[in-house]
């Protein structure tokens, strides 16, 4: 391999990608016509280049842009939450008030859940007659036998004349 061949070998890749100026391009082409060794190297290079191009021309089956839209917020969010929680939990004096709050909360929850149940299970208190007045002045207050409901009996006539 001559020093010209070495120089041309450096330029083969640029020639292949059509990146050389007109004069350089003509020089490379003229050399490739006369030098079988460089022509062989160029052929190998072109073969590799064509192979890579063929692979790259296949369209990817994954929509990377769309996938990234899902991934990016997750990446941004997670460390922030973790940082916030860590800062909150490891704060000096966190556990004592937190324990107190949990105890108060548990007690409040207990009353909230149990009191309505207690109320609903409480025996129904009876109705009572607080006061009665009648123009005739004759009123009886009785109670039913089974459920003790008050019965107010108004006697529009005198008790001797009419009884329930």
């Amino acid at each position, binding site marked *: 391999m001559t020093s010209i061949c070495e120089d041309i070998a450096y330029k083969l890749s640029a020639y292949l990608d059509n990146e050389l100026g007109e004069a350089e391009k003509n020089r490379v082409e003229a050399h490739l016509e006369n030098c079988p060794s460089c022509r062989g190297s160029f052929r190998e290079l072109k073969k590799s280049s064509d192979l890579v191009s063929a692979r790259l021309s296949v369209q990817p089956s994954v929509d990377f842009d769309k996938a990234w839209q899902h991934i990016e917020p997750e990446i941004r969010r997670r460390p922030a939450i973790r940082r916030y929680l860590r800062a*909150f939990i490891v704060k000096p004096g*966190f556990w004592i*008030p*937190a324990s107190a*709050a949990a105890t*108060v*909360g548990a007690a*409040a*929850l207990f*009353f*909230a859940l149990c*009191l*309505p149940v207690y*109320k609903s299970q409480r025996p*129904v*208190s*009876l*109705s*009572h*007659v*607080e*006061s*009665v*007045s*009648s*123009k*005739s002045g004759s*009123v009886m207050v*009785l*109670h*039913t*036998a*089974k*459920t003790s*409901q*008050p*019965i*107010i*009996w*108004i*006697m*529009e006539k005198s008790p001797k004349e009419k009884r*329930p």
Partner: protein
Amino acid sequence: MKQLALLLFVMTAFPLLINTCPAIADSMVMVDVEVINALQNSSEIDPELSGLARELGPVLNYKGFKLLKKSRLPLKIGGRKELLLSRERRLTLTLEGFESGQARINLKIFKNHTEIFATTLLMADNGSAIIGGPELKKGVMLLRVRGKFDG
């Protein structure tokens, strides 16, 4: 510290709110008034009065019970409702307030604009009282007053 205060507030306020809600709601009583004709010379009982007939059987000497009228009157504290019982009688109901879990209901019967009867009942939730005696048709008039606290 702010977060902790917020946590404490939520944990205590929520259950307190749940427990105070019934108290707020107990400012109203739904009163059901049934006007019944009780008869001695009949054993006909309206199906929806069969329970009442069984209750009153051992206490009163009436065998027939006929439902004449049924009204539902929502009563607010201080509120007054009126119901016509017969051509000449009318009933007024006033909710005076709540006391030890009972509703204080004032009940008056007027005959031709004259008050003939008044009573104050301490009505339990779902409780009832019966008022009877005034002559009606061939028997007597019975009023069954039932109160259900709203909420």
